[in-house]
């Protein structure tokens, strides 16, 4: 009946088999229920006009008016800032670790990066709220240090180890022959890297960046503490204005709206947008990372 399962009749009498079927079914059901729930609960909001919801800036639960424009803008700005900030450090770190460190030093480096990548978001949030936002305030002479800029930089520091260790994997997985051949032709180690290794590793590096972006897009606590929490799109491209992104909006209002009403539907609709964005980034990223560089 199920041709994809191992064709061994004895499996039917096997309790372990049935418990694994149960577990796998549970995982499948979770994924299906979860994603369909996000879109099902946001339907009432889509009915009022998808485009209007995506572009309108007005969000007023009292009047039942909901527009996601400010949150989407904030998410885009904060995520791009984080990327711009983290990328140079992450790439240089990855190159150094993969090409110019001894195997032992590389192992230590990787361990440190993987550990840092697991540091809780709330610790970064505390750093941001108690230190970074004060620095930003003093350095740029602002009234309040909670801005899109602060959130972007904090997020950049946060995703730095993730991107670095994934990009390092991508670079390191390029076979050694490429380096040896380039070196034997008289190229310097750095030329060998840029001419022979980097082109092979590029899809993987981009994949690493996309996965890091996916993480940045969904991070809630750290951003929530330093972004300022105002649903506005500042005039011009003012980075030093308070703003709002999707996760921080969800984090702030979920508790009061929970369970019912249009407010809740609108929050879930925001969640569905966030979900779609993260899924696209992650799918593209893991596809690129998985593709063997040959």
């Amino acid at each position, binding site marked *: 009946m199920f*041709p*994809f*399962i*191992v064709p*061994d009749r*004895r*499996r039917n009498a*096997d*309790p*372990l088999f049935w*418990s*694994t*079927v149960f*577990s*796998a079914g549970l*995982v*499948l059901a979770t*994924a299906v229920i*979860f994603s369909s*729930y*996000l879109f099902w609960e946001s339907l009432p909001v889509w009915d009022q006009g998808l485009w209007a919801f995506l572009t309108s800036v007005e969000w007023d639960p009292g009047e039942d008016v909901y527009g996601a424009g400010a949150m989407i803008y904030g998410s885009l700005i904060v995520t791009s800032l984080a990327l711009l900030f983290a990328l140079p*450090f992450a790439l*240089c*770190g990855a190159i*150094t670790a993969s090409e110019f460190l001894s195997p032992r030093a590389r192992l230590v480096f990787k*361990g440190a990066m*993987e*550990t*840092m990548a*697991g540091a*809780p*978001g*709330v*610790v*970064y*949030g*505390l*750093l941001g*709220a*108690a230190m970074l936002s004060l620095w930003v305030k003093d350095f740029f002479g602002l009234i309040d240090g909670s801005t899109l800029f602060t959130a972007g930089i904090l997020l950049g*520091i946060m995703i730095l180890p993730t991107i670095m260790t994934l990009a390092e994997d991508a670079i390191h997985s390029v076979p050694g022959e490429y380096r040896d051949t380039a070196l034997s032709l008289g190229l*310097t180690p*750095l*030329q060998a890297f840029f001419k022979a290794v980097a082109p092979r590793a590029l899809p993987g590096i981009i994949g690493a960046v996309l996965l890091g972006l996916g*993480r940045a897009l*969904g991070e*809630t*606590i750290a951003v929530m503490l330093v972004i300022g929490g105002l649903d506005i799109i500042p005039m011009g491209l003012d980075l030093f204005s308070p703003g709002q992104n999707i*996760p921080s909006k*969800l*984090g702030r209002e*979920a*508790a009061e709206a*929970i369970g019912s009403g249009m407010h809740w539907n609108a929050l879930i609709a925001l*969640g569905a947008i*966030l*979900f779609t964005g*993260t899924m696209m980034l*992650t*799918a593209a990223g893991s596809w690129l990372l998985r593709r063997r560089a040959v």
Partner: protein
Amino acid sequence: MNKRMLDRGLLGIIYLIALVGMIMMLAVLWEVVRRGWPALSLEFLLQPSSNFGAEGGLLYQTLGTIILMAAAVLIGFPIAVGSALFQTEYVRSEGVRAFFRAIIFSLNAVPTILFGLAGYLFFGVYLETGVSWLTGALILAIMILPTIQASIQSSIECLPEKYREVGMSLGMTPWALARRIVLPQCWHGAITGALLGLARAAGETAAIMFTAAAFSGATWPRSFADPVPTLQTHILVLAQDSADATSLTHAWGAALVLLAIVFFLILTSLVIRSRFSMEAQR
């Protein structure tokens, strides 16, 4: 000669930028240790907090974090083992395997706050568990499931094919194969997965802040319906109104304790993983 010089210079710049990145991360650690250290003491760890976190210690917060993460792994671990075994031992179609892998990957990438939202409605409202540690543990269990499963699966996939072939040639059922060969050889993958899962659950705030955690007044849970205070939400609340100096010191102390728990779990898993992957290469 000139080319060599240019090369050297460029390399120097790359090293420099990498170094700055490193220093930035060390600075993050250093600041947490430097500011958290003065708050730490035996009383701080063993006393309940009072006066909204400005006085007392972290006893129930630490307990709450441990209860939540342990319960999450207890719930999530058997399911992760089961579904990993299903995919590696019982599914033979490559397409179905890829499909399952994609699902695990997507679950892994879901922003945790969405688990909080959907999980609260499903468990808290439909199944009537309310704002309680049980709701939080169930949500965290779903959240860490992909972490645990990916770790088990990668260790099973590294099992040399001959082990399996020997088992089959002895006429073992897939059940016996899984129990006698795969699990004993791959248990380290399950252990590292469980440790990483614990670490992720301990560090998670967004998914539990409005589903399982209480700020003040709560102690250890007396029933399934009680919320617990946690280190994560404690830090969050103290950081939000970061005006009072003592409560801020307490927040740093809590951050240091949390960071120590998380790093200990991750480092242990890294050590186990590297020891066993080296053994496999031999």
